Every structure is written in structure tokens, then in C-alpha cells.
């Protein structure tokens, strides 16, 4: 069974540009979470998509947005990039909602903003 995949693996942008990150969940998983892993800050929850809808978002500004497609893959968009947006962006998928559902993480996209 293929795991969660993310693309691209690395992305270099300049301040003010937009970045688009993509995530394909494990087959059969309908729920996708996005996390930001910035240096020294651990992983912080960004967004949750389930059945094509944004269900919850973390404490991040509106320039962080995304969507989930009918095939349950997801896209994270970061507009007006700032230097502090440089981080590893991880997505995780689960079969369904529920606190016992294991979140399976992809390898991440490393975003560097210059």
C-alpha cells in the first residue's frame, strides 16, 4: 500500500510570491491534515480537510489556505510569502475522523523563502 505522498520535495520562493504544495493521501483515506514544522517550533496544526470541506484551521493567517479535491488529494496554498514561512510542511491522512485514528504522515515539502 502506497503511503502519503507530497510534492514537490523542495520549493524555493522569494518573499511576496505564492507557493502551492500538494498531498495525495493513502488510498481509502478521506481526511487530510496539514502541519507546519518550523525549526525549533515543532509541528503546528494548519488545516483539516474532510470529504472535500475545510473543517478546522489552526492559528495561522488567512494567506494560508487550501482545498481538497474529489479524489481526496489536497493542496496547500501560501500567499504573500514571508521569510518566516520557511519550514517543512507535512500532510497526514486518516481513514475517517476520530481520535483513535492514526494520522499517517508524508515526507513533507521543504519550503525556503528568500
Amino acid at each position, binding site marked *: 500500500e502506497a503511503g*502519503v505522498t507530497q510534492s514537490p520535495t523542495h520549493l524555493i520562493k522569494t518573499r511576496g510570491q505564492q507557493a502551492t504544495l500538494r498531498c495525495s493521501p493513502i488510498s481509502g483515506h478521506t481526511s487530510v*491534515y496539514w*502541519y507546519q514544522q518550523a525549526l*525549533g*517550533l*515543532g*509541528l*503546528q*496544526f494548519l488545516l*483539516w480537510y*474532510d470529504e472535500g470541506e475545510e*473543517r*478546522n484551521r*489552526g492559528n495561522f493567517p488567512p494567506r494560508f489556505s487550501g482545498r481538497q479535491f474529489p479524489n481526496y488529494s489536497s493542496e496547500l496554498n501560501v500567499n504573500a510569502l514571508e521569510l518566516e514561512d520557511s519550514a517543512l510542511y*507535512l500532510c*497526514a491522512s486518516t481513514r475517517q*475522523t*476520530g*481520535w*483513535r*485514528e*492514526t*494520522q*499517517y*504522515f*508524508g*515526507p*513533507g515539502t521543504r519550503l525556503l523563502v528568500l
Partner: protein
Amino acid sequence: QQQVKQSPQSLIVQKGGISIINCAYENTAFDYFPWYQQFPGKGPALLIAIRPDVSEKKEGRFTISFNKSAKQFSLHIMDSQPGDSATYFCAASRDSGAGSYQLTFGKGTKLSVIP
């Protein structure tokens, strides 16, 4: 506001020794406590998890100890091996509304097991 505090930041253990990583949480609404292991260049992977109605859970060389009254939980790695060298994250989860169970993570502990 950091809701899950993890210590130490880094840990060096000799092969065969016991590695201990501690976490403390503030929000009593948390009801699920997983530990994740992350190798360089990889995403975190679930190692072991515990619910608050259990004081200890063991899976192979990995044990979670949970103290509900102290709002603390810890990961013990027995007979630590060089292959255990990785970054370990504790996390906590609760229903954040609308069925959302996002994880709140500690900042991580970088474990190095030396031969």
C-alpha cells in the same frame, strides 16, 4: 501558548541503555496521547499511543507511562539501539469541534544512541 511541553531537547544514550523522554500537558480535555518517531528526511511515524484511562502501555522495547493527576506522560526506550536514533515527538489530541482531532505536538527530542 505551548500546550505540550517536552524535555529534554536532546538526549545521548549508550547502546543498551534506557532512553527517557518526558512530556507535560496543560489542557485536561486532551484524551489521546501518541508518540511519533521521525527520521531525517521522513515524516513522523506513529510509535505508540495511550489513552488517559491507562497508566502504562508497552510495545516491545517502547513503554508509555501516564500520570493523569500530574498531567505528565513519558516514553521509555529499553535496550536503546543505534537504529533508535531519531527525533521523538509527543503529542496530544482532543475533539476540537466538528470532529476535528488535530494533534498538538511537543517540540521534539533528538535522541542519539552511541555504540
